[in-house]
């Protein structure tokens, strides 16, 4: 029997909340039966396994043979990539534990020692991150075991160990930030650090691969002779995780012990001070706000102008939202670098930049359109104002397009000088891609606080997928139009069909 407010009791409480969160994630927030959920989940798992099978079928010889240095280097590189993503997730989770008020005030005002909550939450984070990482890793592990033997199932243990280590490091980093820059700045800083950690290894590896081999492939880079000649020998402890992942039981045991000890040390070191940190974080959230520059004199503004201005000011004053929006563009840097490097001498680089810019415009517009249309913090004020909904919407869309214009105008200006035809095709592609993403966000509009920006992708996966597909398709249109071929009509028709299909299944269409 577990006593009230014991560590076990808290663990059960957290598990129940986590399970309900997962249900919402799986069901997209809609009421669905368990059978429907299980069927959907089963199909998803089968699809991922089929993908993994396709990817590993060509490497069966590698999987069945003894692990050599080449394999250990490749697996280590892949694990470091995974770990950077896990660490990013862990940083987010630890920051939330300090700052999300939720039930924290109830718990902190109860006669229960705060360390128990944090201890359970740190452990729960490790479990959650393990499960989330396994969503991608499990199919690869299972198929590797299918081809190479059951020893590969040790990959599950490696993922769990890495999750424990990521949480321990994230707790340490967050608390270090807390002490260094104070609770007020830590919230934004930790989220930006998390995003940068998540992106940096992927992007860095791609830059290295492009710089050395003119390819986006991480595999080509990790298996290159240059890397092999510099990598330590197979007996080096750096390969501990890789050896564990390919079936070395002793390596797995050591890895699990070390990572569990790191998590336990983090819990012992930081949990007793959780209450103090949480109170400081809470104090930061109610501390006086930043003083702004003395406001400019009142200017006569139409409702549309007032709305546009408000959207831009809110975006500029929220570094976290800005970083989240621009982070989407960061992932486009490697392909831009690749295209530039590959085609600079042929003089066709400008044409090949078109799809990248068009795709970026679609992605950025999707995020900004969500903020403007769905992420309204004062919906009642807007709804009670003497402005028609259509006019409000038009002003918000103008705000989105204004921001897109500011971001992409310099690229278009340079293209206009070097290659006016390509500039025109790019402009058209950017307008269509951004317009489509905005339309999709309009069809799937909801009402949420701007702070829930990150959740927009889970609240409507259909909108997210449709947004990505339309951006990719318009990028194809832009590329073909820039090349001066009429074949551009084909992806254009596909893009229109994607939009039509998206509209047909959107809630807007459903409600008439």
């Amino acid at each position, binding site marked *: 029997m577990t006593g009230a407010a014991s560590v076990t009791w808290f663990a059960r409480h957290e598990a129940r909340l986590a399970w309900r969160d997962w249900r919402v994630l799986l069901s997209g927030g809609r009421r669905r039966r368990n059978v429907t959920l299980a069927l959907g989940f089963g199909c998803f798992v089968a699809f991922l396994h089929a993908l993994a099978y396709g990817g590993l079928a060509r490497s069966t010889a590698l999987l069945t043979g003894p692990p050599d240095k080449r394999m250990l280097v490749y697996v280590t590189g892949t694990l470091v990539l995974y770990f950077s993503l896990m660490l990013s997730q862990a940083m987010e989770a630890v920051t939330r534990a300090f700052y999300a008020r939720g039930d924290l005030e109830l718990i902190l005002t109860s006669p229960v020692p705060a360390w128990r909550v944090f201890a359970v939450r740190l452990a729960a984070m490790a479990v959650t991150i393990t499960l989330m990482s396994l969503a991608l890793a499990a199919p690869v592990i299972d198929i590797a075991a299918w081809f190479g033997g059951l020893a590969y199932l040790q990959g599950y243990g490696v993922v769990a160990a890495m999750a424990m280590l990521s949480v321990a490091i994230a707790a340490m980093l967050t608390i270090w930030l807390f002490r260094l820059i104070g609770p007020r700045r830590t919230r934004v800083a930790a989220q930006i650090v998390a995003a940068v950690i998540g992106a940096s290894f992927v992007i860095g590896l791609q830059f290295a691969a492009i710089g050395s081999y003119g390819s986006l492939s991480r595999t080509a880079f990790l298996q290159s002779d240059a890397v092999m000649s510099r990598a330590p020998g197979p007996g080096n402890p750096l390969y501990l995780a890789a050896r564990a992942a390919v079936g070395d039981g002793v390596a797995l045991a050591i890895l699990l012990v070390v990572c569990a000890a790191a998590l336990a040390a983090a819990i012992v070191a930081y949990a007793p001070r959780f209450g103090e940190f949480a109170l400081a974080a809470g104090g930061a959230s*109610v*501390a*006086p*706000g*930043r*003083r*702004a*520059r*003395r*406001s400019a*004199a*009142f*200017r*006569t*503004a*139409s*409702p549309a*102008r*007032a*709305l546009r*201005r*408000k959207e831009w*000011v*809110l975006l500029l*004053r*929220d570094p976290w939202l800005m970083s989240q929006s621009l982070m989407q563009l960061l992932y486009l840097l490697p392909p831009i670098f690749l295209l530039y490097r590959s085609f600079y001498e042929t003089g066709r680089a400008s044409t090949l930049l078109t799809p990248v810019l068009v795709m970026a415009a679609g992605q950025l517009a999707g995020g900004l359109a969500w903020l403007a249309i769905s992420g309204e*913090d*004062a*919906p*009642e*004020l*807007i*709804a*009670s*104002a*003497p*402005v*028609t909904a259509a006019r409000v919407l038009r002003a918000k869309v103008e705000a989105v397009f204004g921001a897109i214009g500011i971001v992409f105008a310099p690229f278009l200006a340079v293209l206009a000088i070097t290659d006016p035809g390509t500039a025109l095709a790019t402009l058209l592609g950017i307008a269509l891609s951004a317009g489509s993403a905005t339309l999709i966000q309009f069809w799937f509009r909801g009402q949420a606080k701007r702070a829930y920006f990150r959740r927009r992708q889970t609240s409507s996966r259909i909108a997210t997928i449709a947004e990505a597909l339309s951006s990719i398709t318009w990028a194809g249109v832009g590329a073909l139009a820039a090349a001066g071929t009429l074949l551009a009509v084909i992806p254009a028709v596909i893009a229109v069909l994607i939009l039509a299909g998206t509209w047909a299944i959107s809630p807007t269409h459903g409600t008439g």
Partner: protein
Amino acid sequence: MPEPASSAALDIRDLAKSFERPAVDGLQLRVAAGEYYTLLGPNGAGKTTTLRMVAGLLKPDRGSIAVFGVDALADPVAAKRVMAWLSDEPMIYDKLTPLEYLQFVGGLWSVPSELAAVRAGDLIGWLGLGPYADTRCEGLSKGTRQKVALAGALLHEPRLIILDEPFTGLDAAAARLVKDVLRQRVAAGCSVVMTTHILEVAERMADRIGVMAGGRLVAEGTLDELRRRAGPGNTSLEDAFLALTADGAKPAGALAA
């Protein structure tokens, strides 16, 4: 003889709204120009739903709403031009300062810039917001945020102010300030419709009180009229309120005068 509809600040007829059950059920309500009207009722009586429909935040299932003779359902923009809405949880932008918020509200209601600047200055002064005028709203206390929202509601000098529990979370000094501002507005000819659970506020401020229960108006009148309707022994508004809402399903006309 009844007043013509156009002279009423608010004229609600046969208003109904259902969610999973009827929230407002055939409501008739009339507020005169220059009147301070308070809606009372137990939780779930339909007060907030009613006011949200008047403010244009909810669409009624049936019925009509006229604001100073303007059909608020047919021409909501014209009705909103003379109206202001303030809820108990005011939503303001954390990243704007109170002054910027007022500038934004001025833009939404198309208040000429010079006039908006003067009114914003006055409101900031009256409501004691001077020290926070250039501080982002994210760190302001609930009471101060409520004052910022109230300043926003008053900036375009509405003829009808609709308030849903405006005193929730305000300290005594802030509550007194808000009451004074509202009384001044009413003295200047503005109409106020307000919901509250604080009976003392209704008792001291309202010209007329409406009591809602089960989505209907079960009683209406001045404090003395309500006491009389509630019957002998019900001397305070609290007694009258409890007596009147105990029989919530009956509409106003069904109660003995």
